[in-house]
Protein backbone atom coordinates (compact mmCIF):
# COMPACT_ATOMS: atom_id res chain seq x y z
CA UNK A 1 0.00 0.00 0.00
CA UNK A 2 1.15 3.54 -0.65
CA UNK A 3 1.64 5.82 2.32
CA UNK A 4 -1.43 7.84 1.42
CA UNK A 5 -3.64 4.78 1.15
CA UNK A 6 -2.39 3.50 4.53
CA UNK A 7 -3.34 6.82 6.11
CA UNK A 8 -6.71 6.87 4.35
CA UNK A 9 -7.60 3.37 5.51
CA UNK A 10 -6.32 3.93 9.03
CA UNK A 11 -8.13 7.25 9.48
CA UNK A 12 -11.29 5.66 8.12
CA UNK A 13 -11.08 2.84 10.63
CA UNK A 14 -10.65 5.33 13.48
CA UNK A 15 -13.59 7.27 12.09
CA UNK A 16 -15.69 4.09 11.97
CA UNK A 17 -15.04 3.32 15.65
CA UNK A 18 -15.98 6.85 16.64
CA UNK A 19 -19.06 7.07 14.42
CA UNK A 20 -20.55 3.71 15.34
CA UNK A 21 -20.04 4.21 19.05
CA UNK A 22 -21.46 7.72 18.73
CA UNK A 23 -24.51 6.32 16.93
CA UNK A 24 -25.04 3.74 19.68
CA UNK A 25 -24.91 6.46 22.31
CA UNK A 26 -27.30 8.67 20.34
CA UNK A 27 -29.82 5.82 20.65
CA UNK A 28 -29.79 6.50 24.40
CA UNK A 29 -30.89 10.10 23.99
CA UNK A 30 -34.11 10.66 25.93
CA UNK A 31 -33.61 7.32 27.68
CA UNK A 32 -31.16 8.20 30.45
CA UNK A 33 -32.01 7.57 34.09
CA UNK A 34 -31.38 11.19 35.12
CA UNK A 35 -31.35 14.55 33.39
CA UNK A 36 -27.68 15.15 34.17
CA UNK A 37 -26.70 11.73 32.82
CA UNK A 38 -28.76 12.46 29.74
CA UNK A 39 -26.78 15.62 29.03
CA UNK A 40 -23.47 13.91 29.67
CA UNK A 41 -24.25 11.00 27.35
CA UNK A 42 -25.42 13.28 24.56
CA UNK A 43 -22.29 15.43 24.94
CA UNK A 44 -20.08 12.36 24.71
CA UNK A 45 -21.95 10.99 21.70
CA UNK A 46 -21.43 14.29 19.92
CA UNK A 47 -17.75 14.25 20.87
CA UNK A 48 -17.44 10.89 19.11
CA UNK A 49 -19.34 12.05 16.06
CA UNK A 50 -17.10 15.12 15.93
CA UNK A 51 -14.05 12.86 16.01
CA UNK A 52 -15.55 10.74 13.24
CA UNK A 53 -16.02 13.86 11.11
CA UNK A 54 -12.38 14.85 11.51
CA UNK A 55 -11.08 11.35 10.78
CA UNK A 56 -13.36 10.93 7.76
CA UNK A 57 -12.51 14.30 6.30
CA UNK A 58 -8.84 13.47 6.61
CA UNK A 59 -9.37 9.98 5.19
CA UNK A 60 -11.15 11.51 2.21
CA UNK A 61 -8.26 13.91 1.63
CA UNK A 62 -5.68 11.12 1.78
CA UNK A 63 -7.76 8.90 -0.46
CA UNK A 64 -8.04 11.63 -3.09
CA UNK A 65 -11.17 10.19 -4.68
CA UNK A 66 -13.41 13.13 -3.89
CA UNK A 67 -15.34 11.46 -1.05
CA UNK A 68 -16.25 13.68 1.87
CA UNK A 69 -17.24 12.92 5.47
CA UNK A 70 -20.89 12.34 4.58
CA UNK A 71 -20.07 9.94 1.76
CA UNK A 72 -17.90 7.91 4.12
CA UNK A 73 -20.34 7.99 7.02
CA UNK A 74 -23.57 7.31 5.17
CA UNK A 75 -22.98 5.78 1.78
CA UNK A 76 -20.89 2.68 2.35
CA UNK A 77 -22.18 -0.89 2.60
CA UNK A 78 -21.82 -2.90 5.79
CA UNK A 79 -18.62 -4.77 4.92
CA UNK A 80 -16.72 -1.53 4.26
CA UNK A 81 -17.06 -0.42 7.88
CA UNK A 82 -13.99 -1.52 9.84
CA UNK A 83 -14.99 -0.64 13.40
CA UNK A 84 -14.40 -2.99 16.31
CA UNK A 85 -17.24 -5.37 17.11
CA UNK A 86 -17.29 -3.99 20.66
CA UNK A 87 -18.56 -0.54 19.66
CA UNK A 88 -21.50 -1.89 17.67
CA UNK A 89 -22.83 -3.99 20.56
CA UNK A 90 -26.33 -2.93 21.65
CA UNK A 91 -26.77 -0.64 24.62
CA UNK A 92 -28.53 -3.30 26.69
CA UNK A 93 -29.15 -2.06 30.24
CA UNK A 94 -27.24 0.85 31.73
CA UNK A 95 -24.53 -1.45 33.14
CA UNK A 96 -23.98 -3.06 29.72
CA UNK A 97 -23.46 0.36 28.16
CA UNK A 98 -21.07 1.44 30.89
CA UNK A 99 -18.96 -1.71 30.58
CA UNK A 100 -18.76 -1.29 26.82
CA UNK A 101 -17.63 2.30 27.30
CA UNK A 102 -14.98 1.39 29.87
CA UNK A 103 -13.52 -1.45 27.82
CA UNK A 104 -13.41 0.60 24.64
CA UNK A 105 -12.40 3.94 26.09
CA UNK A 106 -9.49 2.54 28.10
CA UNK A 107 -8.16 1.01 24.86
CA UNK A 108 -8.95 4.05 22.74
CA UNK A 109 -7.31 6.45 25.17
CA UNK A 110 -4.06 4.45 25.15
CA UNK A 111 -4.22 4.24 21.35
CA UNK A 112 -4.79 7.98 20.94
CA UNK A 113 -1.92 8.68 23.29
CA UNK A 114 0.46 6.79 20.97
CA UNK A 115 -1.07 8.38 17.89
CA UNK A 116 -0.38 11.89 19.20
CA UNK A 117 3.29 10.98 18.70
CA UNK A 118 2.97 9.29 15.31
CA UNK A 119 4.82 10.83 12.39
CA UNK A 120 1.78 11.90 10.42
CA UNK A 121 0.62 15.32 11.45
CA UNK A 122 -2.93 14.87 10.19
CA UNK A 123 -3.53 11.89 12.46
CA UNK A 124 -1.58 13.24 15.43
CA UNK A 125 -3.50 16.53 15.45
CA UNK A 126 -6.88 14.81 15.54
CA UNK A 127 -5.62 12.33 18.13
CA UNK A 128 -4.50 15.15 20.41
CA UNK A 129 -7.96 16.73 20.34
CA UNK A 130 -9.75 13.43 20.81
CA UNK A 131 -7.43 12.40 23.65
CA UNK A 132 -8.68 15.19 25.92
CA UNK A 133 -12.31 14.32 25.28
CA UNK A 134 -11.85 10.60 25.82
CA UNK A 135 -9.86 11.10 29.00
CA UNK A 136 -12.95 12.71 30.47
CA UNK A 137 -15.29 10.05 29.05
CA UNK A 138 -13.26 7.33 30.71
CA UNK A 139 -13.29 9.20 34.01
CA UNK A 140 -17.08 9.26 33.77
CA UNK A 141 -17.59 5.65 32.67
CA UNK A 142 -14.91 4.31 35.04
CA UNK A 143 -16.53 5.98 38.03
CA UNK A 144 -19.88 4.53 37.03
CA UNK A 145 -18.40 1.05 36.82
CA UNK A 146 -17.07 1.44 40.35
CA UNK A 147 -20.44 2.72 41.57
CA UNK A 148 -22.31 -0.17 40.01
CA UNK A 149 -19.79 -2.88 40.90
CA UNK A 150 -19.33 -1.64 44.44
CA UNK A 151 -23.00 -0.75 44.78
CA UNK A 152 -25.82 -3.10 45.70
CA UNK A 153 -25.82 -6.86 45.40
CA UNK A 154 -28.02 -6.61 42.34
CA UNK A 155 -25.99 -3.93 40.55
CA UNK A 156 -22.80 -5.90 41.30
CA UNK A 157 -24.21 -9.11 39.83
CA UNK A 158 -25.63 -7.41 36.77
CA UNK A 159 -22.51 -5.46 35.88
CA UNK A 160 -20.32 -8.53 36.45
CA UNK A 161 -22.46 -10.31 33.88
CA UNK A 162 -22.06 -7.36 31.48
CA UNK A 163 -18.30 -7.62 31.89
CA UNK A 164 -18.31 -11.37 31.27
CA UNK A 165 -20.57 -10.98 28.22
CA UNK A 166 -18.57 -8.22 26.54
CA UNK A 167 -15.11 -9.56 27.33
CA UNK A 168 -15.04 -11.68 24.17
CA UNK A 169 -15.00 -8.53 22.05
CA UNK A 170 -11.77 -7.22 23.56
CA UNK A 171 -9.32 -9.62 21.87
CA UNK A 172 -9.79 -7.94 18.52
CA UNK A 173 -8.44 -4.65 19.87
CA UNK A 174 -4.98 -6.16 20.26
CA UNK A 175 -4.73 -8.40 17.20
CA UNK A 176 -2.72 -6.46 14.62
CA UNK A 177 -3.59 -6.89 10.97
CA UNK A 178 -1.69 -5.74 7.90
CA UNK A 179 -2.91 -2.16 8.24
CA UNK A 180 -1.79 -1.94 11.87
CA UNK A 181 1.62 -3.26 10.85
CA UNK A 182 1.95 -0.74 8.02
CA UNK A 183 0.86 2.13 10.22
CA UNK A 184 3.43 1.12 12.78
CA UNK A 185 6.27 0.60 10.28
CA UNK A 186 5.68 3.74 8.20
CA UNK A 187 4.29 6.23 10.72
CA UNK A 188 5.46 5.08 14.13
CA UNK A 189 1.93 3.92 14.91
CA UNK A 190 0.83 1.89 17.94
CA UNK A 191 2.34 -1.44 18.88
CA UNK A 192 -0.83 -3.29 19.85
CA UNK A 193 0.85 -5.96 21.99
CA UNK A 194 2.47 -3.23 24.09
CA UNK A 195 -0.84 -1.40 24.25
CA UNK A 196 -2.46 -4.54 25.60
CA UNK A 197 -0.12 -4.65 28.59
CA UNK A 198 -1.06 -1.08 29.50
CA UNK A 199 -4.75 -1.73 28.90
CA UNK A 200 -4.78 -4.79 31.13
CA UNK A 201 -3.23 -2.83 33.97
CA UNK A 202 -5.70 0.04 33.54
CA UNK A 203 -8.75 -2.18 33.29
CA UNK A 204 -7.60 -4.42 36.15
CA UNK A 205 -7.30 -1.34 38.38
CA UNK A 206 -10.83 -0.12 37.62
CA UNK A 207 -12.29 -3.62 37.90
CA UNK A 208 -10.58 -4.18 41.25
CA UNK A 209 -11.86 -0.87 42.60
CA UNK A 210 -15.33 -1.91 41.43
CA UNK A 211 -14.90 -5.15 43.44
CA UNK A 212 -15.51 -7.13 40.24
CA UNK A 213 -13.64 -10.12 38.82
CA UNK A 214 -11.75 -9.94 35.54
CA UNK A 215 -13.23 -12.59 33.25
CA UNK A 216 -11.05 -15.47 32.06
CA UNK A 217 -9.64 -15.09 28.60
CA UNK A 218 -12.14 -17.11 26.68
CA UNK A 219 -12.75 -17.46 22.97
CA UNK A 220 -12.46 -14.06 21.35
CA UNK A 221 -14.73 -12.78 18.60
CA UNK A 222 -13.11 -10.92 15.73
CA UNK A 223 -13.86 -9.72 12.23
CA UNK A 224 -14.81 -6.06 12.68
CA UNK A 225 -11.49 -4.85 11.31
CA UNK A 226 -12.08 -6.97 8.21
CA UNK A 227 -15.68 -5.80 7.78
CA UNK A 228 -17.37 -8.94 9.15
CA UNK A 229 -19.83 -7.64 11.71
CA UNK A 230 -22.17 -9.04 14.32
CA UNK A 231 -25.87 -9.43 13.57
CA UNK A 232 -26.67 -6.12 15.29
CA UNK A 233 -24.73 -4.03 12.83
CA UNK A 234 -27.13 -4.11 9.88
CA UNK A 235 -29.93 -2.69 11.98
CA UNK A 236 -27.73 0.10 13.30
CA UNK A 237 -26.63 0.97 9.79
CA UNK A 238 -30.17 0.89 8.40
CA UNK A 239 -31.30 3.45 10.94
CA UNK A 240 -28.21 5.61 10.63
CA UNK A 241 -28.18 5.68 6.83
CA UNK A 242 -31.92 5.94 6.32
CA UNK A 243 -32.13 9.68 5.66
CA UNK A 244 -29.17 9.82 3.27
CA UNK A 245 -30.39 6.77 1.38
CA UNK A 246 -33.93 8.13 1.10
CA UNK A 247 -33.04 11.74 0.33
CA UNK A 248 -29.52 11.67 -1.13
CA UNK A 249 -27.60 14.86 -0.51
CA UNK A 250 -30.36 16.37 1.65
CA UNK A 251 -29.27 19.38 3.67
CA UNK A 252 -30.90 21.85 6.01
Amino acid at each position, binding site marked *: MSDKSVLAAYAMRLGDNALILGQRMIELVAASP*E*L*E*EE*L*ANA*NFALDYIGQARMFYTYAGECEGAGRDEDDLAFLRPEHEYRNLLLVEQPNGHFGDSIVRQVLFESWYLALLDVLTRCSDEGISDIAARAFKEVR*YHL*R*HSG*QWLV*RLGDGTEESHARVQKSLNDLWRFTGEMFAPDELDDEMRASFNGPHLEVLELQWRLDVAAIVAEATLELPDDQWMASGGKQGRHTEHFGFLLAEMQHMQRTFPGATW
Partner: protein
Amino acid sequence: MKQEWPLYEVFIRSKSGLSHRHAGSVHAADDEMALNNARDTYTRRNEGVSIWVVRSDRIVASDPAESSAFFEPAEDKIYRHPTFYDIPDEVENL
Protein backbone atom coordinates in the same frame (compact mmCIF):
# COMPACT_ATOMS: atom_id res chain seq x y z
CA MET B 1 -39.89 3.36 44.14
CA LYS B 2 -37.55 6.01 42.92
CA GLN B 3 -35.27 7.64 45.41
CA GLU B 4 -34.12 11.13 44.46
CA TRP B 5 -30.40 11.78 44.48
CA PRO B 6 -29.27 14.64 46.73
CA LEU B 7 -29.10 18.14 45.32
CA TYR B 8 -25.77 19.94 44.92
CA GLU B 9 -25.19 23.64 44.33
CA VAL B 10 -22.75 24.49 41.56
CA PHE B 11 -20.33 27.42 41.54
CA ILE B 12 -18.32 28.28 38.44
CA ARG B 13 -15.26 30.47 38.07
CA SER B 14 -15.51 31.83 34.56
CA LYS B 15 -11.88 32.86 34.29
CA SER B 16 -8.82 33.12 36.46
CA GLY B 17 -8.93 36.04 38.84
CA LEU B 18 -12.70 36.16 39.12
CA SER B 19 -14.55 34.59 42.00
CA HIS B 20 -16.80 31.56 41.72
CA ARG B 21 -20.44 32.41 41.07
CA HIS B 22 -23.50 30.34 41.68
CA ALA B 23 -24.55 28.74 38.40
CA GLY B 24 -27.38 26.45 39.43
CA SER B 25 -27.79 23.00 40.88
CA VAL B 26 -27.54 19.34 39.90
CA HIS B 27 -28.65 16.03 41.30
CA ALA B 28 -25.93 13.48 42.01
CA ALA B 29 -25.44 10.30 44.01
CA ASP B 30 -22.00 11.30 45.32
CA ASP B 31 -19.45 14.12 45.28
CA GLU B 32 -17.53 12.89 42.24
CA MET B 33 -20.72 12.52 40.23
CA ALA B 34 -21.79 16.00 41.30
CA LEU B 35 -18.57 17.44 39.91
CA ASN B 36 -19.01 15.52 36.64
CA ASN B 37 -22.65 16.52 36.33
CA ALA B 38 -21.80 20.15 37.01
CA ARG B 39 -19.15 20.04 34.30
CA ASP B 40 -21.50 18.42 31.81
CA THR B 41 -24.45 20.67 32.63
CA TYR B 42 -22.89 24.08 33.15
CA THR B 43 -19.57 24.24 31.27
CA ARG B 44 -20.55 22.80 27.90
CA ARG B 45 -20.07 26.14 26.19
CA ASN B 46 -16.71 26.92 27.68
CA GLU B 47 -18.15 28.83 30.64
CA GLY B 48 -15.58 27.93 33.24
CA VAL B 49 -12.06 27.21 34.42
CA SER B 50 -12.96 25.93 37.88
CA ILE B 51 -15.98 24.32 39.52
CA TRP B 52 -17.06 24.00 43.13
CA VAL B 53 -19.92 21.79 44.16
CA VAL B 54 -21.42 21.51 47.61
CA ARG B 55 -24.39 19.58 48.87
CA SER B 56 -27.31 21.94 49.18
CA ASP B 57 -28.16 20.67 52.67
CA ARG B 58 -24.66 21.64 53.82
CA ILE B 59 -25.23 25.29 53.04
CA VAL B 60 -26.21 27.39 56.04
CA ALA B 61 -28.58 30.09 54.83
CA SER B 62 -30.01 33.17 56.45
CA ASP B 63 -33.67 33.04 57.33
CA PRO B 64 -35.87 35.26 55.12
CA ALA B 65 -38.03 35.99 58.17
CA GLU B 66 -35.00 37.50 59.85
CA SER B 67 -34.11 39.74 56.95
CA SER B 68 -35.11 42.97 58.62
CA ALA B 69 -32.79 42.30 61.55
CA PHE B 70 -30.08 40.98 59.29
CA PHE B 71 -29.97 43.50 56.52
CA GLU B 72 -31.96 46.64 57.18
CA PRO B 73 -29.56 48.14 59.75
CA ALA B 74 -26.98 48.43 56.93
CA GLU B 75 -29.27 50.44 54.69
CA ASP B 76 -28.52 53.88 56.10
CA LYS B 77 -24.81 53.53 56.89
CA ILE B 78 -23.55 55.53 53.95
CA TYR B 79 -20.17 56.04 55.65
CA ARG B 80 -19.41 52.35 55.13
CA HIS B 81 -19.24 52.76 51.35
CA PRO B 82 -15.83 53.68 49.95
CA THR B 83 -17.36 56.30 47.68
CA PHE B 84 -14.74 58.89 48.60
CA TYR B 85 -11.92 57.17 46.72
CA ASP B 86 -11.00 57.57 43.06
CA ILE B 87 -10.58 54.18 41.44
CA PRO B 88 -7.82 54.03 38.81
CA ASP B 89 -8.98 52.95 35.35
CA GLU B 90 -6.53 50.03 35.39
CA VAL B 91 -8.40 48.29 38.19
CA GLU B 92 -10.90 45.91 36.70
CA ASN B 93 -13.57 43.78 38.27
CA LEU B 94 -13.88 45.85 41.43
